[in-house]
């Protein structure tokens, strides 16, 4: 079946992502921020689906929306909300903030302007069923080294967290 109303869904999901992204940093109550972040992650997963990447979309939901954000919420639920609401929400480093915002914006504009030469003309379309296989082939074939390095970094982070959290091991 042909995809229907793709333009509408793209703009709808993008608007949802941006809007909930803004809500994440403007809400005072941390639980509200976490919920907005969940919505942003789900909308992002839907965008992956629109790009014919069902595996990435599924993993995004399971890991980020269903796993990591639950742990976020878990910690936030233990925080004293009244005390955290009295604290200052934004810090005063607006010069650095402005500089990095401009740099990031310039990068986006540059990539958008050069998009013709940077990216292939048409999306690489794969048969839908073999998407997961393609991801695996890329991860464990072409990018094996980078993938293993990334997992090593995660391991170091985990051990670091355990060492910092536990005085006696």
């Amino acid at each position: 079946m042909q995809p229907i109303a793709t333009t509408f869904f793209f703009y709808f999901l993008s608007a949802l992502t941006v809007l909930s992204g803004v809500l994440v940093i403007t809400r005072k109550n941390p639980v509200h921020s976490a919920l907005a972040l969940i919505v942003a992650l789900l909308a992002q997963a839907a965008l992956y689906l629109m790009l014919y990447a069902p595996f990435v979309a599924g993993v995004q939901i399971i890991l980020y929306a269903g796993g990591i954000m639950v742990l976020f919420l878990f910690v936030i639920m233990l925080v004293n909300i009244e005390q955290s609401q009295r604290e200052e929400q934004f810090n005063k480093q607006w010069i650095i903030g402005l500089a990095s915002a401009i740099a990031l914006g310039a990068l986006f504009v540059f990539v958008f302007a050069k998009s013709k030469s940077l990216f292939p003309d048409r999306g690489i379309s794969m048969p839908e069923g073999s998407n997961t296989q393609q991801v695996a082939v890329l991860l464990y074939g072409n990018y094996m080294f980078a993938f293993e390095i990334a997992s090593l970094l995660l391991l170091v982070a985990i051990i670091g967290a355990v060492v910092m959290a536990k005085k006696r091991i």
Partner: protein
Amino acid sequence: MLSIETFVVVSVIKIVIALFVLLTAVAYTVWLERKVVGHIQNRWGPTRVGPFGLLQPLADGIKFIFKEDLTPPHVYKPLYIAAPMIALICALTSIAVIPIGNWVTIGGVHTPLQITDLNIGLLIILGITSLGVYGVALAGWSSNSKYSLLGGLRASAQMVSYEVSLGLSLIGVLIVAGSFSLRDIVDGQGGHFWGFIPKWNIFYGGQFVAFFIYLISAYAETNRVPFDLPEAESELVAGYHTEYSAMKFAMFFMAEYANMITVACVASLLFLGGWHGPVFGPPILQAILPVFWFVLRVFGFLFVYIWVRGTLPRFRYDQLMAFGWKFLLPLAIANLVITALVVAWRA
């Protein structure tokens, strides 16, 4: 290929039927549970409403609807109202990708007995059930009560922990089947080997250990005995739904039983060959029999659920966590490695 109008009409019909059947099944699982646990404990269970108490679910439903819907003054209202909805929506949505039988042709329309056949069906089920945690966690937080908060915290920690072993136990099946689509996984389990043993994944694929890992983690995922610590009534009143009453409470209740049914469906599809079974007789019987075999398996799982509930005592919380992380998880990883080695060696 269907035209868009027929597609929409057929889908709506299938959704209505699936939801009706699922909700009826939920109601009668509750009846079955009360009846079976009653007999295990040498009681009769419900007997008064209708023959064998068969109309008891109806009476319960009417009672839930007409009870006063209390909202305690100290709750955080938006999330307090949204939490049971999130729980129920997540529980009902996952039925959309579960196939209950082969393709059928009714009135010239050739359609699968399934709302939609996605090629990432299993991932969708895992994703939606992992989102179901939010219903419980937010209910616990928004109630602003210590029992609810502790219940919600326990539930989210328990579900996140056991989700890992649950997912890993399924990957063994995925390696054997080579597809995420539930329909493909079931199709791969047709036929027999050595003459009479069916080629179900639990036998032929060697996923015997994975099956039990899945079963145990699924009990923990659905907060059932012996892992029902989130609502341990002897210490937490009722856990995360302490402050809920009437229909909002009923929504949590329905979500729990709908999740049980989903888990039973996934176990039947992935490990026990789905709807495969002896098919014979006239065409109408041939169309119905696979569905019957599938429902029989699901019923078997639900019965075991209830049986376990009537038999086992509750775990202590530290035992639960140690069991999940130190026993089930290593076992699931070992099963995964061995399955991968065997599949690689066969290929």
